[in-house]
Every structure is written in structure tokens, then in C-alpha cells.
């Protein structure tokens, strides 16, 4: 039975065709090497939830990071940021002024040149949209463009702009005025699967709800060039089923899979045709307790649940696909504190429950919990938690939901309709722990990601102080993180960090040049890859 | 002078259900000879074994053990292979059954049935059409009837049609299983008359099975009375009807209300 139809001749012809188009369009010498046709990325979720680079704040990053670029990019190897659209930068006045020099000769996919004005317009639009990760620009008070290739940020408080500009979300530099698009119509134009980025690939096709959801084509005029071996096209397959993902990897229909399950990952390490890479992520799973309504408004109950969680059992059961949560901040980021690693303490949990009138012999407690449908690790945690809590006379009423529904319920206008416990992964937008605090625990109206519904002015004040400290006083910053984590996790017991994901990537072993960059979760920078000839 | 040709001869027929020790005798018929152009009637109440006997003559006794000999011409129905029997059925021995309408396939036009039956015995095309027309005329049915479905005709018409099938196939032996019991009294007479006439005209050996001596008395030359699987009395119709030897026959005769009225 012929499953895959390889048509080398046709593919080569097409590649040559693209190469010649590339040559004409950009005016640069045509790429000399034939591009390998397609890199297929198998992703378990819907890829696109938002096409607008200003507000995008979800799965689509795996595609958009190949379409859009920011001023800088974070390099996990050195822990520093590297040039991308900016070639160099400097800061003066104690981190209050930042000057970026833009790469010259770069064009947006729509043909417009990348100038300081254009970059300013993009950042201004992102800030104005107030969605997604716009908060990263919070320190910016004004932007100057002294010449077409110089961008100057004036900040209201000191902040690490070079790191911020490498953010996985909200930092894209894009054209806000593509030709032929009316000024007010940009968003709807983008939502129709258009893009105005500078990256190596440009959006070619989007089939929402289909297996092959997104197709990106090589942008011939990419400033990084196409010499050497590269992929001509990137396809994002939406493949929720792990078995399917596994077989498509085996047969070579798919070149990369972001996550299988621990058992299959182990299996993949024995396969010659497959390469594997396990990398500690900057992403952790957090259980948020409803501090504003329902039974968990009683802090003793929250602490009891925290102590009832079998953290070590969870790690064991997940067979190497996760590492321990050391407080809110994953290892690898400043502020991470191994001393904050939690262990199960059932006697304490029982004591706390007894004080509150619950627990064995006391009143029965019912807790509602929502988690992500189809996430095996979350499901496993829920089972273990239910098991441990049942022994404490607490019934967990767990409901797997798709994220939109889960979030909608979490933000229900009537607090009584919200859940008691919510599971959510979080990761940094740029290489700093700030994101965990400002997004998850700073009070916000209406509710956004502050899903503990904490409203503590003291906590808010401490969080607001972080950016300034980051830029001026790293030691004080770390002290502040330690203080905040003790407050949030121990005094307030607003949440329980459960584990840090280990990214277990599986890909065709013919590919060279792949290195997982945990600062950009699940992203494969396809232009960096070298397909096997 | 040769004796009249025997169309059907039965010798030592025994039909049993089950095997070995448990075997139960359903019907036994020591001897029966049906000559061409004569009518033999087998009479008995239900369960007497008369229908079983009839089916044995067709070789249609599924799952029953049959012994003895049933000669139709040179063929012994008891031992003949199934293939020979399927040829014999219809072309030499034809059945006219009890409930005329339900015996005709409800989803088939009469013409289709006639055509298929004839084709089964190798009669096709113009010959088949001719045969069908003649047979229908013989039983006094309008050929237009061939376009109808069984539920669109009367019981009498259905029975005439069943007889027409036998005629069209030129069967030597016609086995009529209670051919009139499901019909109105007026129609009964007509159908019996028809059978009687065809017997005479075509030299058919007619075996008539009935529970009703009144029916039988009209056309039978020879009568066999059966009860509980055994022959109680057997003899020429006049003898059996006029001077019954067995008590059971007398009971049957007494139960015929129409006699003498």
C-alpha cells in the first residue's frame, strides 16, 4: 500500500521555480541550492488563535516566530540576547534610555522597508492594543527616531529593554501600513491570514480546523538569505492524537513533534531515524486557588491542598517528562530558589483541615477543578490529587475543558460560576520572572490571567517595583522575588506550582542545526535548520 | 391390452422424525399406485400424515428420514440425488398447495413467476409464452392476469394460476394439497371441476389430499384414509364411500354435513 507519494522530480521543479521567483522578486542573486520542499511540524493544539502580532498571546507563536522578528533574540546558551532586527544597542542614564541601531536593507514581506519609524509605529500599535503581552513595554514613556535606522526608547523607570525586546510575544516589529490596507482595517486584514513581518517565512495558507492548518512559504527577500540548505515551506499539522503523531514521525511524514508522551519519547530514543532532545523548559504547571469565592477563600484550606499534593509522586509518575517546581520561577531564571521545592505533608494538611472544620471526621468538602482537555500530565495530576484529597474527605470535581471554555468559566462575571482550582501552564515572555508575578498575581479588572483572583495591594506594590530593580539592583530584585514567593505561596497560598516541564522534542534525525530555545516555547526557528541533502 | 401406465408408485413408504430409538413415525404408506388420468385421494384429519406423505412424494422432507420407494416413472424420489429431484419437481411432479395466495411470492408478478418457473425447466422465449397462454386458457384465466401481483387477484384465480403452472410444465403427476380448503364454497366446486377436467384431458395422475370426504367424493377414483400416520382404509372410491370398512371412515363420513342435502 503506497502511503506516501514522493515525487522528487516535481518537487525539484517547484523548488527551482520558487528559486527563480525569489531571484526576480528581491533582486538578490537567486538561491543557488535547491530548497528541500517542506518542513512539517506536528503540533497537538490548534495553531492559530490570533493572527495579530500586537495581541497574539497563544499557540500561534510557533508559526509567528518564523514570520515576524523582534529587535533581539534571547540565547539560552549564553543567557544573553543576540542581535536580530537590531544590530547593536546601548543604554544610558542608568537604564532609562535605550538606543537600538536597526539592520539596514531589511524589507517587510509587503515590500516596505524596515525603518525606525515603522518599528516605532509597530510598538506603539502593540502598546495601544493593550492585549496579549503589551505589558512588556510598560516602562516605555516615549520613542524617538532620530534617523531611519535608530530607535531610542525613553523609559519612565529603568528596565532591561534589550531582554524585553527579545520577548516571545508582543515584541514583533511589523508593518502597520501595508500597501492597499486601509488604516483602520489592519486587524481584520491580518485575521484573514495575512502578515506584515520580516521573518524568513510568510503566511501562505490557513485552514482552520484542518489537519494541515498553517502553511508558510519562504520569503525570497529574507535579509538572512537562503544560501546553504533550507526549507522552502513550513507546514503546521494540527495533530491532537499522540499515536498519529508517532506514526507520522516514524514514516517521515512529519519532521518535528513538540511533545509526545514520556513512554513514546523513551521509545523514540531507540530509533535511528529519529533525533530526540530533552530540555528543561521555562514553563511550569500551576494550580490556582480561588481566593475570592467558594470554600478556598479560607486560606487554611488552600494551604491544606498545597500540602496534600504528592509532588514527588507526580514527578515519578511522569517518567522524566517534568522536573521539580522550585517555587514559581523555573530554574534557569534569576529568582529561582530550590529551597522552595515542596513535598507532600499530609499530617499538616490534616491539621489545617481540622482547624477549618473539614478533613476526616469533619465536614465534607467539594472542590471544582478545571484543566486542559487532552493534557495527559494534567490529567494524571488531577487523578493523583483526587486520590490524595479523597483520603482527606475532600472530593475533587474535575472537568477537562478546552482552553477557551476553561478560561471563559474562570472569568465568569458571577464569581460563583468560577472554579475552585484551575490548572494552567505559564512561561516567561522574556527571560525574566516578572511575567509570573505581574500576570498571575497582580490584581486585574476584568479578570485576565490572575486566576487566583488575588487582590492584595501590598503584593501589587511589590510586583510593580520589580522592573526598576531588574535594571538597577539585581540583588534587591532577587530578594524581592524571594519575598513575593513566600508571600504568595506560603502566606496567601494562592497557588501551588506543580512541576516544570521538560521539553521532549522528537524530530527526523536527518535535520541538523536544531537546538531547543526554551525562551520561545515549542518554537522551531526553521530558517536555522539544515535539512539532510 | 396393456394395463394403464403407472405415473406414481409408492411402496413401503415410511417417514420418521428423529433417529434411532427416538424416531417417531410420521407416516407410512405400504402401497399406492396412481395411474395416469386417475385421481387418488388421501383423506385424514390434520396430523394424520397425509401432507407428510405428499411432501415425501416431492422429496421435500427436510430433516426427516424417509425409507421405501416412491417411483415417478423410472426415478426413485427417495434415493435420487438432489439435482435429479430439482429437475423432477415441477416438470414431472407438480404441487398445488393449500393457501393459494400466500403460496405465490408476494413481490413477483404472476407472469414473472410463470416465466421463471418455465425457464427453470428449460422452456424459454416464444415457446414459454405459448405454453403460458395455453395453460391460462386451459384454466380459464385471462392472460392479462400475468401483469398482476398475487394480492391483486382473488383466491380462486390464484388457485387456477397455480394449476396453470402445473399444466404449463406438462407435469405427469399433480399433487394437490387441500386445494380448496381456503376457498369459498362456490369457487371450491369450480376448482375441483377444473382439476377433474385436466386430469381427464391431459392424462394427469392426480393425488388429492384433503380432510374433507365431501370434496374427495366428487372426483376421486381411489381413496386412502389415514390416521396417526397409518393407513386405516384404502380402496376404490365407491367402496370406501359406500361401504366403509373402518370405524374411522364411518366417523368421517358422518361428519360430512353436505352429503344428501
Amino acid at each position, binding site marked *: 500500500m503506497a502511503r506516501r507519494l514522493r515525487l522528487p522530480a516535481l518537487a525539484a521543479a517547484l523548488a527551482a521555480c520558487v528559486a527563480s521567483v525569489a531571484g526576480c522578486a528581491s533582486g538578490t542573486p537567486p538561491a543557488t541550492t535547491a530548497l528541500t520542499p517542506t518542513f512539517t511540524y506536528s503540533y497537538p493544539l490548534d495553531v492559530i488563535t490570533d493572527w495579530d502580532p500586537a495581541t497574539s498571546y497563544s499557540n500561534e507563536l510557533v508559526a509567528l516566530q518564523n514570520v515576524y522578528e523582534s529587535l533581539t533574540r534571547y540565547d539560552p546558551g549564553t543567557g544573553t540576547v543576540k542581535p536580530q532586527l537590531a544590530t547593536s544597542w546601548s543604554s544610558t542614564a542608568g537604564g532609562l534610555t535605550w538606543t537600538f541601531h536597526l539592520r539596514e536593507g531589511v524589507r517587510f514581506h509587503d515590500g516596505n522597508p524596515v525603518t525606525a519609524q515603522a518599528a516605532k509605529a509597530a510598538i506603539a500599535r502593540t502598546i495601544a492594543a493593550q492585549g496579549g503581552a503589551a505589558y512588556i513595554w510598560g516602562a516605555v514613556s516615549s520613542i524617538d527616531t532620530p534617523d531611519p535606522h535608530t530607535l531610542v526608547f525613553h523609559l519612565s523607570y529603568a528596565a532591561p529593554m534589550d531582554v524585553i525586546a527579545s520577548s516571545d510575544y508582543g515584541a514583533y516589529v511589523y508593518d502597520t501600513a501595508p500597501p492597499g490596507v486601509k488604516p483602520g482595517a489592519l486587524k481584520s486584514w491580518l485575521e484573514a491570514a495575512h502578515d506584515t513581518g520580516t521573518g524568513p517565512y510568510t503566511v501562505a495558507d490557513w485552514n482552520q480546523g484542518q489537519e494541515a492548518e498553517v502553511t508558510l512559504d519562504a520569503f525570497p527577500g529574507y535579509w538572512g538569505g537562503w544560501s546553504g540548505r533550507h526549507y522552502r515551506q513550513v507546514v503546521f499539522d494540527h495533530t491532537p*492524537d*499522540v*499515536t498519529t503523531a508517532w506514526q507520522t514521525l516514524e514514516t517521515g511524514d512529519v519532521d518535528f513533534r513538540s511533545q509526545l508522551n514520556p*513512554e513514546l519519547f523513551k*521509545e523514540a530514543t531507540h530509533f535511528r531515524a529519529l533525533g530526540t532532545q530533552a530540555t528543561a523548559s521555562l514553563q511550569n504547571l500551576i494550580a490556582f486557588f480561588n481566593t475570592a469565592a467558594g470554600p478556598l477563600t479560607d486560606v487554611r484550606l488552600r494551604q491544606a491542598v498545597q500540602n496534600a499534593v504528592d509532588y514527588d509522586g507526580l514527578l515519578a*509518575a511522569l517518567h522524566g517528562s517534568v522536573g521539580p517546581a522550585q517555587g514559581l520561577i523555573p530554574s534557569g531564571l534569576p529568582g529561582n530558589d530550590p529551597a522552595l521545592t515542596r513535598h507532600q505533608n499530609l499530617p499538616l494538611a490534616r491539621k489545617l483541615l481540622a482547624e477549618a472544620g473539614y478533613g476526616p471526621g469533619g465536614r465534607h468538602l467539594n472542590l471544582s477543578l478545571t484543566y486542559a482537555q487532552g493534557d495527559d500530565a494534567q490529567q494524571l495530576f488531577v487523578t*493523583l490529587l483526587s486520590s490524595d484529597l479523597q483520603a482527606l474527605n475532600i472530593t475533587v*470535581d474535575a472537568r*477537562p475543558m478546552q482552553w477557551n471554555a476553561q478560561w471563559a468559566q474562570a472569568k465568569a462575571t458571577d464569581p460563583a460560576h468560577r472554579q475552585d482550582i484551575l490548572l494552567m501552564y505559564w512561561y516567561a515572555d522574556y527571560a525574566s520572572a516578572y511575567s509570573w508575578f505581574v500576570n498571575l498575581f497582580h490584581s486585574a479588572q476584568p479578570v485576565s490571567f490572575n486566576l487566583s483572583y488575588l487582590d492584595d495591594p501590598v503584593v501589587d506594590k511589590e510586583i510593580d517595583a520589580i522592573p526598576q530593580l531588574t535594571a538597577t539592583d539585581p540583588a534587591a530584585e532577587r530578594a524581592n522575588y524571594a519575598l513575593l514567593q513566600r508571600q504568595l505561596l506560603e502566606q496567601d497560598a494562592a497557588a501551588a506550582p506543580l512541576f516544570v516541564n521538560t521539553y521532549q522534542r522528537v524530530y527526523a534525525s536527518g535535520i541538523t542545526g536544531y537546538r531547543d530555545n526554551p525562551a520561545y516555547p515549542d518554537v522551531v526557528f526553521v530558517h536555522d535548520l539544515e535539512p539532510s541533502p | 391390452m396393456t394395463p394403464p401406465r403407472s405415473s406414481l408408485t409408492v411402496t413401503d413408504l415410511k417417514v420418521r422424525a428423529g433417529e434411532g430409538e427416538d424416531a417417531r413415525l410420521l407416516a407410512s404408506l405400504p402401497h399406492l399406485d396412481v395411474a395416469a388420468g386417475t385421481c387418488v385421494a388421501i383423506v385424514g384429519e390434520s396430523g394424520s400424515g397425509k401432507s407428510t406423505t405428499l411432501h415425501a412424494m416431492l422429496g421435500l422432507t427436510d430433516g426427516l428420514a424417509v425409507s421405501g420407494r416412491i417411483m415417478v416413472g423410472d426415478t426413485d424420489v427417495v434415493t435420487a440425488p438432489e439435482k435429479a429431484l430439482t429437475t423432477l419437481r415441477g416438470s414431472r411432479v407438480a404441487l398445488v398447495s393449500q393457501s393459494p395466495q400466500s403460496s405465490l411470492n408476494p413481490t413477483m408478478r404472476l407472469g414473472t413467476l410463470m416465466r421463471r418457473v418455465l425457464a427453470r425447466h428449460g422452456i424459454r422465449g416464444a415457446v414459454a409464452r405459448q405454453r403460458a397462454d395455453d395453460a391460462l386458457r386451459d384454466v380459464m384465466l385471462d392472460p392479462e392476469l400475468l401483469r398482476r401481483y398475487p394480492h391483486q387477484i382473488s383466491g380462486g384465480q390464484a388457485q387456477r394460476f397455480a394449476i396453470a403452472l402445473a399444466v404449463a410444465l406438462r407435469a405427469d403427476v399433480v399433487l394437490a394439497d387441500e386445494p380448496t380448503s381456503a376457498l369459498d364454497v362456490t369457487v371450491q366446486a369450480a376448482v375441483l371441476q377444473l382439476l377433474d377436467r385436466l386430469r381427464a384431458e391431459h392424462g394427469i395422475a392426480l393425488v388429492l389430499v384433503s380432510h374433507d370426504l365431501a370434496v374427495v367424493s366428487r372426483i376421486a377414483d381411489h381413496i386412502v384414509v389415514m390416521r396417526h400416520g397409518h393407513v386405516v382404509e384404502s380402496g376404490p372410491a365407491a367402496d370406501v364411500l359406500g361401504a366403509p370398512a373402518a370405524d374411522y371412515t364411518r366417523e368421517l363420513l358422518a361428519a360430512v354435513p353436505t352429503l344428501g342435502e
Partner: protein
Amino acid sequence: MTDVSPTLAPPAPAPDRSAPPTPAARGGQARRLLALARRDLPATVGAVVLLAIVLAAVLAPWLAPYPGDGSHATHPLDTLAGPGGRHWFGTDAVGRDLLTRVMYGARTSLTVAAAVLTVSALVGVPLGVIAGYTGGVVKDVIMRITDVFLAFPALLLSVALATVLHPGTGSAIIAISVGWWPWYARMACVTATGIRSRGFVDAARCLGVSRIRIMARHVLPNALTPVLVQLSLDAGGVILTSAALSYLGLGPQEPTAEWGLMVQQGQDLFITDWWVVAFPGLAILLTAFCFNVLGEGLRSALDPHRELTR
């Protein structure tokens, strides 16, 4: 007609052939049952296996090797152990003994099946009897309502309803029953319509017995025989439907042991740890198969007319 889909399509009702049961007739049925046990080997084997399953379910707390695993216990340090001496069926992703889980799963499935059939019969049969016996407008209204329900395949209506209800054992029972009762209503209606014209009902009516009394004392018992046969045939179908519902995540939730749920949770591990899916899956298959075989046997035993089609 026989054997319309025991799974999703309860068969169209059989035309009524039952005489009013006399004690002698009941004795006859019992005798027939006994005779069946000798003659119908498959049905007998089915019954014996079912009995074993029921016993395993009822006695699970005593028979299961790790009774705690049937409800809330977990063993995160002993996950995904293959079938072997300590765990005959292996362990699942949180270290629970699968043999225990499968035994407890039998409790869930059998409970759901029994509850669904009871509820459906309790709702459907009286409605059907009233419709069939009363006739006229009442019959039209009731039967048109059942028609509407019957226009949804049973699983579809259950799925739509289970989505609305909070998932759990109770809502699974309700969701399936809603799609199931109309079959019994229709069947009882046909039977009751037939009985209505019988002599003994006329006699009772002439004696001045009230309608309700006639329905309760004469019509209902007679409508029950075909319904009882149908119930035994449908049990397998309900088991499959509830397993499907659970597989879609709309049935009982963790930590309840439910076969469909176990299959759903284990499916991603099928390649590497087959036992997680195989044993609960085979449990569904075996139970449904036995119910179907037994139901077939009962039908032919209690309904001699169907003798031939066996």
C-alpha cells in the same frame, strides 16, 4: 424479524403473540428455560460468564487484589507495570491495579445498565400501555412524542444531553434513558393495542372494572413479556452506549472506575503499554457479547415462534 441492532437500535417491537399467561404457561416457560440451558449452549455459557461478571462486580471489595485502587488510591511510584505476578492485568498511569479497576468498572457498567433499563421501562411501558389501551388522540400524542425521540439515534441524544448535564454516573443514566424509553413505549403500545381487543379485556370491561384497573391488572402484565425479552437484549446495547459516552468524557469521571473512561485515558499509551487499553476494552466486549447471546437465547426460548430463526 429479529436481531435489529441490540447496540444502538432496540428492535422494532415484535407483533404480539402471547396469550394471557396462566400459571401453567409460566411453568411452561420455566421448563422451556431449563430445556434451553441443555440445548442452547452459547446462551448458557453467556449466562454463566455474566454471572461471573456480576459476582466479580458485587464481590469486588473482597475479591479484588487491591480494593483501594477501585476508588481513590494511587501509587505514583508503581505506574505502568506490565501484566505479571503482582498485577495480573498490569497497572495504569497512576499505578492502580488494572484487574481491580476492571472489576470495579463492572460495578459501574452494570449499575448504569440496570438503572437505564429500569428507568426506561418504568417510563416507557406505562406510557405505551396507556397509549395503546386508550387509543385515539392520547395514543396519537404519545406516539408522536416517541417518534420525535426516536428520530435521534440513542447515542446522539445521550451525547447532546450529557453535554448539558454535569458529567457523572447519574447524568449518564439520565442521558441514556432519555434516548431509550421510547422503544419500550412503542413496544408496549403495540402489545396493548393488540390486547385491548381480546376477549378477556372485553369481559372485564363488561363487568364494570375501571380502565385503570384493566390496564394495571390485565394489559400491563401481558405487555411485559415482550418488554422483558427486549430488556435482556438491550442490556448489551446500554453497556456499549454508556461506554461510548464515557469514552467521549461525558460519563462517570475519575476516580470512578469505568471501562470506557479507562480506554479513553489509556489510548495514548496503547503503543507502549497495551494492557492499559486492552483489558477494560475486552471487558466491555465480553459483557456486551454475553448479554447479546443470552438475550438472543431468551428470546427464542420464550418465543417459540422464533424457533426457526435460531
